[in-house]
């Protein structure tokens, strides 16, 4: 008997694609309504893009506002690592995990333009490969800060008068190429241990040897893939066909394995633009997703609707039931964390074993 096919993970972007001409929303209710709709379809998570270069609210703040208005859906904002403080990134995402009771993730992003650099005025713009290497260091230290409190550090020892067992808090003493962080975090370990880290791998990613759009792009794309292989729980790959997606997935898994990671702990989702005209389109999409999934192209899908309000309704009412009929999506959502939805285990703090050994 063959092993049961793992479920098809399903996520959706709440933001309209750049250049779509849709008005930029600034009111909380717009985002709450979309997230609730995604939750009604028992999707695993929603993403919300962000950038310092175009109009829009701070994405982690928007999804923190959404958190108490939803119960199950995972919440994954984009967070920029280039001009920001790694310590603040870590505490903001950890706090999103606390306010959502374990439903947070973050999508690692960088700033490469002079225009972005001028908004901060702290340093000049750097090439993509360089800022992605730094983003990898940020992802590393952010996860270390999440681990810097062991899960049972709060003891409330009334007799001894001690609130924490300070042997279970750890300096991280991280030194990167452009910053250093002493630690420990100010925020106790979040409910998921480590909120889910997502990396959006650019479309040029493909098997080695495939000519890219030029050497610079190749170098920077390689840097993104290295960050995904080393630090991501979820990688998004943009591909037009299942063969390309499958090759990108195989390559990322191989890199993760080469770095000593269990490749099954790196989920690769194909990120697809969708534009649905009606219920038949929604059912057709379910068929396409099912076929890609069966072909081993991806562990699931991240859908980027042309019109989030319209397309999300069709996804929830048409695509999701069709996927359930094929046994690819669970019938409901019993609750739990984003890691639970994705089938990813809750990691132990890396600092816990060191204490036992000492």
């Amino acid at each position: 008997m063959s092993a049961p096919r793992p479920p098809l993970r399903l996520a959706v972007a709440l933001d309209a694609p750049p250049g779509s001409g849709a008005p930029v929303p600034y009111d909380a209710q717009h985002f709450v309504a979309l997230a609730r709709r995604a939750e009604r379809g028992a999707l695993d998570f929603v993403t919300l893009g962000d950038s310092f270069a175009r109009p829009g609210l701070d994405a982690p703040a928007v999804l923190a506002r959404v958190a108490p208005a939803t119960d199950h859906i995972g919440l994954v904002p984009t967070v920029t690592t280039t001009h920001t403080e790694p310590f603040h990134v870590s505490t903001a995402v950890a706090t999103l995990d606390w306010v959502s009771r374990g439903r947070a993730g973050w999508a690692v992003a960088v700033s490469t333009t002079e225009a972005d650099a001028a908004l901060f005025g702290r340093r000049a713009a750097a090439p993509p490969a360089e800022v992605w290497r730094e983003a990898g260091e940020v992802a590393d230290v952010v996860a270390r800060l999440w681990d810097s409190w062991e899960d049972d550090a709060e003891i409330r020892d009334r007799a001894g008068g001690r609130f924490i067992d300070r042997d279970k808090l750890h300096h991280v003493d991280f030194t990167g190429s452009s910053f250093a962080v002493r630690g420990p975090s100010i925020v106790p370990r979040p409910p998921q241990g480590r909120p889910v880290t997502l990396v959006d791998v650019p479309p040029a990613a493909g098997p080695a040897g495939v000519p890219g759009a030029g050497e610079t792009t190749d170098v920077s794309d390689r840097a993104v893939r290295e960050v995904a292989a080393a630090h991501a729980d979820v990688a998004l790959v943009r591909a037009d066909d299942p063969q390309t997606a499958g090759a990108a997935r195989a390559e990322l898994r191989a890199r993760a394995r080469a770095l000593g990671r269990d490749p099954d702990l790196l989920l690769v989702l194909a990120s697809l633009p969708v534009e649905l005209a009606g219920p038949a389109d929604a059912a057709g999409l379910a068929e396409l997703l099912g076929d890609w999934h069966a072909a081993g192209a991806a562990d699931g899908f991240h859908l980027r609707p042309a019109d989030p309000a319209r397309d999300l309704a069709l996804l929830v009412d048409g695509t999701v039931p069709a996927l359930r009929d094929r046994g690819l999506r669970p019938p409901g959502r019993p609750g739990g964390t984003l890691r639970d939805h994705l089938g990813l285990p809750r990691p132990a703090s890396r600092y816990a074993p060191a204490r036992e050994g000492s």
Partner: protein
Amino acid sequence: MMSPTSPTPPPRKQIHLAAHFPGVNNTTVWADPGSGSHIAFSSFAHLARTAERGLFDFFFLAEGLRLREHKGRIHDLDVVGRPESLTVLSALAAVTERLGLAATVSATFNEPYELARRLASLDHLSGGRAAWNVVTTSDAFTGENFRRGGYLDRADRYTRAAEFVATARELWDSWTADGQPRPFAHRGEHFAVHGEFTVPRSPQGHPVVIQAGDSPEGREFAASAADVIFTRHSGAEAGRAFYADVKGRLARYGRRPGDLKIMPGVTFVLGDTAAEAQEHAAEIRRRQVSPQHALLALEQVWGVDLSAYDPDGPLPDIDPDPHGELAQGRVRIADPKAVADKWRALSRAKGLSIRETVIETTGRQSFIGTAQDVAAQMDAFVQTDAADGFILVPHLTPGGLDPFVDRVVPLLQERGVFRTEYSGATLRSHLGLPEPARTGGKGGRP
């Protein structure tokens, strides 16, 4: 009501109230059986909803950027750890409707563009309820967690903070009234930034700015730039002197006395009788100053290891080490020898142990009594211009504010000195602050 025969009494000053989430110092009693989680969102939601039930102006969160250390180890006697303020407040915007939401955020370890954007986002997401408590951070110890690192001396800290606030306001003003972004450019001593802001002007125009700190630099900064000053609570006389001093500085900046609200941080203990309240207050003080706390408080003054001393015994005969560096991440005590002499004198005069001395000399509650007493004391404090209101610091999470809202707020309302409903939707409207004028976009604040 107006009457033709009797003159209208002058309207009584209205009290402004805010609630401070219990902090990471020993004001907060975590060992009480009623003490709940200091990190779960439900605790923040309970306190915020209680404050909103009590029609408070705003809910206040402090900031942590480095865990405190004592004798080279992480301080473990008080609550340790807290969430990141702006993220919690964005979530609280979902479970409250009118309550102002104030985040403490350092002007030292942030940059204007990013923070102005986060604050404007909170103001949009909450429908005009955002506030920013501007603080500066003094020590290289905290800097070890940040790219910026390093150390700014006191004067530079305030000039950076002032320029930070001015720059943030330029960004908040940068969109046109009809919703188009305009380029901004700021070049100053601390910041040189230009570009376009990604967020339209928010419901309050500018989120409310709070300044915490009583130093002359802090007072001047507040007079020039803040809407609220969060000050230390002292007696009525000292409060009136502070109030007159700060309000007196406003005219220099073209501001009126009502444009800056003075709100000391205060604690309270209620009882059915005055005696019961006093007894309860003493019991809380004993919980706040455990034997371990008593020795720690002593070590912070003496600057040397005193762990061999008995907290129930007499104070040390040795003098403090003026160069002692036991505590990191705390405000330094200016004259340790003077404090030690005062404590020893008190201990001798009253026959107090180390622990009893610390209980006697530190952190006595601001208002103790029946609900009637406390309402009367607070009202008198405000009517005599020792304050415009209070930031209440409960000693218990999450239920510590409930007795005040249930018992004192109705009495303040009966006295006609506290609102019986919210009249506006924004924090500015609760505080009676003017709509901020829009500046030219490229220039500084006039």
